[in-house]
């Protein structure tokens, strides 16, 4: 027996409330873009759009990794620190500076990037092991990693930035492919791969099941521990990628890079409709969430609004998005 009659959902299909509920964030993004393009003729220029995308790409990459973690009922607070750690470590391999680099530097950019990714995957693996095997709450485990990775960054670099990166390495932050900035290309590629993994692979199905009901997932033969571990490795590696792009863009790696970046990443995921209680969410939502934050920052900049106000608005947006989600869940 249906709890809802068949007729209800047909009527629901054209129900304006449902559309707002399901596509509200996308509508908000489009609406914002329409308003901005009216009020400022510079907004919709290709140059500015690429600029928004480039500014969004670092937070976007972090948010994509964060989506995997949050889908399994977890959270990764360490991404901001991993941004700095992986940035510093890879930069020390790709610098021409004789004092900041490690022996034999500069290495080819590929080597520096692979080592950077391994650093991120390792910190993610450690946090993931603590969460999945030792059953420490994700909040606590990654809060610890937030502090530890920042400390390791400072120890490794002796508290100093790593300047003078090779042009080859800087290309991932400043180069372009067919006129499109490399960070944007990387962001797009990470998005497509994440989307494919979550919607088309068995691993993706497992991620949703583990977040939706770990016990049912376990009973159905899924290795819940392993899936949980993997999502932190993914998040760590993507944080490292973002960290390297950031270092490459600015030309030197800073020990203070990425502070509080985890908050914007979580905000993008949450605004994108992924539930903090796991099992519900779409990677496309995260993309829209990250873009919305990026467009809003850009638009407010263009309109000359002070960055202090931008923070207030972002706060309002996060809470409003989650409230929207709550009403949706109540309906179900």
């Amino acid at each position: 027996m249906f709890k809802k009659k068949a007729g209800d959902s047909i009527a629901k299909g054209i129900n304006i409330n449902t559309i707002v509920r399901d596509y509200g964030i996308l509508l908000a993004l489009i609406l914002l873009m329409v308003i901005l393009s009216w009020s400022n003729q510079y907004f919709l220029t290709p140059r500015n759009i690429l600029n928004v995308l480039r500014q969004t790409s670092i937070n976007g990459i972090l948010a994509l990794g964060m989506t995997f973690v949050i889908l399994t009922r977890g959270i990764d607070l360490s991404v901001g620190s991993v941004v700095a750690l992986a940035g510093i470590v890879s930069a020390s391999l790709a610098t021409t500076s004789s004092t900041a680099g490690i022996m034999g530097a500069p290495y080819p950019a590929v080597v520096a990037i692979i080592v950077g990714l391994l650093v991120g995957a390792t910190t993610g693996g450690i946090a993931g092991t603590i969460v999945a095997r030792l059953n420490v709450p994700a909040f606590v485990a990654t809060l610890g990693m937030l502090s530890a990775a920042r400390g390791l960054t400072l120890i490794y670099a002796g508290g100093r930035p790593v300047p003078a990166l090779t042009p080859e390495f800087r290309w991932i932050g400043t180069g372009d492919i067919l006129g499109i900035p490399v960070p944007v290309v990387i962001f797009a590629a990470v998005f497509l791969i994440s989307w494919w993994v979550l919607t088309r692979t068995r691993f993706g199905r497992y991620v949703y099941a583990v977040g939706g009901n770990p016990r049912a997932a376990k009973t159905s033969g899924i290795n819940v521990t392993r899936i949980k571990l993997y999502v932190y490795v993914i998040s760590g590696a993507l944080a490292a990628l973002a960290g390297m792009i950031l270092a490459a863009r600015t030309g030197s790696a800073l020990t203070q890079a990425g502070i509080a970046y985890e908050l914007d990443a979580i905000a993008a995921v949450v605004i994108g409709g992924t539930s903090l209680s796991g099992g519900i969410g779409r990677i496309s939502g995260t993309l829209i969430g990250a873009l919305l934050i990026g467009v809003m920052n850009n638009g407010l900049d263009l309109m000359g609004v002070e960055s202090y106000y931008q923070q207030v608005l972002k706060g309002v947006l996060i809470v409003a998005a989650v409230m929207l989600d709550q009403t949706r869940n109540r309906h179900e």
Partner: protein
Amino acid sequence: MVHLLEVSGLTKSFGGVAALRNGQFQLESGSVHALCGGNGAGKSTFLSIIMGIHVRDGGQIWRNGELVEFASPAEALASGISIIEQELSPVPHMTVAENIYLGREPLRRFGGINFSAMNKASGRILDSLEFDISPTTLMMDLSIAQTQLVEIAKALSYDAEVIFMDEPTSAIGGQEVEQLLAAIQKLKAQGKGIVYVSHRLSEIFEVADHYTVFRDGAFVEEGEISSIDRRGLIRCIVGRDLEEEFTKTNTPTNKTGLAVVGLSDENKISDISFSVNKGEILGIYGLMGSGRTEIFECLFGLSKKTSGTISIAKKTIEVNSPSQAIGHGLALVTEDRKLSGLVMTGSVRSNLCLASLKNLGHGPVMSSMLEKTASKEMIAQFSIKAERDTMPVSELSGGNQQKTVLGKWFMTKPDVLLLDEPTRGVDVGAKREIYGVMSEFASQGGTVVMTSSEIEEVLGMADRILVMRDGRISGVLSRKEANAEMLVNLAA
């Protein structure tokens, strides 16, 4: 004579379905009164009306001869009626005294809690009952039985005269039960009236003076325990023949399907041995906490066995994880579909496919076509009533959700089906369908093991019945020889 509590003609319906048609009850002071009845007999509805949780549709309640009407549990408590629930919910990090006086702590002049007065008062109550518990012990350091004793002390701290105990022994065993029954005798000696709800008949005959039986939401009989025997009480509780509710078409073969020898786990089950033939339905009957579920958890790799061997079709298998169990052709329909059966945030299709994902794609990549086809097949086979298979499984009715769980496991093409309370919380129609599926599976050569706490279901569906008590097998009966009385006797 004035009764502590007298109830007559109590009725209550939920959404047009009568849960209680005629609740009738009389409690004398200084007595223990057993309230008996099967599942759905209306006992819990009865209790929640008396406690002011539900509002009655009709009938009267007298307390010490005065007509009363409770709008909330607080009012019931204030008039001296207290209940000790089946699921206790103490605050573990607080002391015994803090738990007893939770929410009404004695205060000092400036609003601080007067701990010494609280501890002294708690100590007095605990001593009067001769409980060997210190008021300053933390709740978390107590056993379940001791926690129950604290609940009794709490009831007395409210000056309760009428104390309901809902299945107080369901989670404790042996000696602890004796301790609890002794405490009940003391309460009785103090002139309290105790209403004792339990499925364990041996306890009822040990502790109660009177009995009242409910069946199908209505009062059936009352009397003195001394005037009825165990057999008579069971007949009164079970009351009717349910044979025709069950669709049973299978006939056991003589080929072994599943064999278990000497299975034990750390503390819940020990030395479990049985074998089930292909085409056979083995029923496992036992009370809550008797180890039924733990057998399945060991077989399925959800909990560690400490000894014993498992074999399927005469081949010994090693099971350390559910995925190994599934690989060996086992399937487990768990007791609670919301807790461990379904991913409620997922769609019908994703739930149906969840245990078979390895077969529904190419390597690590899923094939939507294969998933869609497989899910359609199961929806048709189990006649799951879903608008689309992409709709959230949470929007299905209980019966269809349960069929979705079954579908998930049938998709793995199992040889051995383990069913833990397969019809819990589903309506009669869906129940029949589930019985049909079970029979069909067995008659095609499948092996079925089913646990149930419903006697009628076990009697109706099983070819052989294994009865559990305190983690051990207390008897195995064939379909022909088994009857309700024997099952209850062996289980309690």
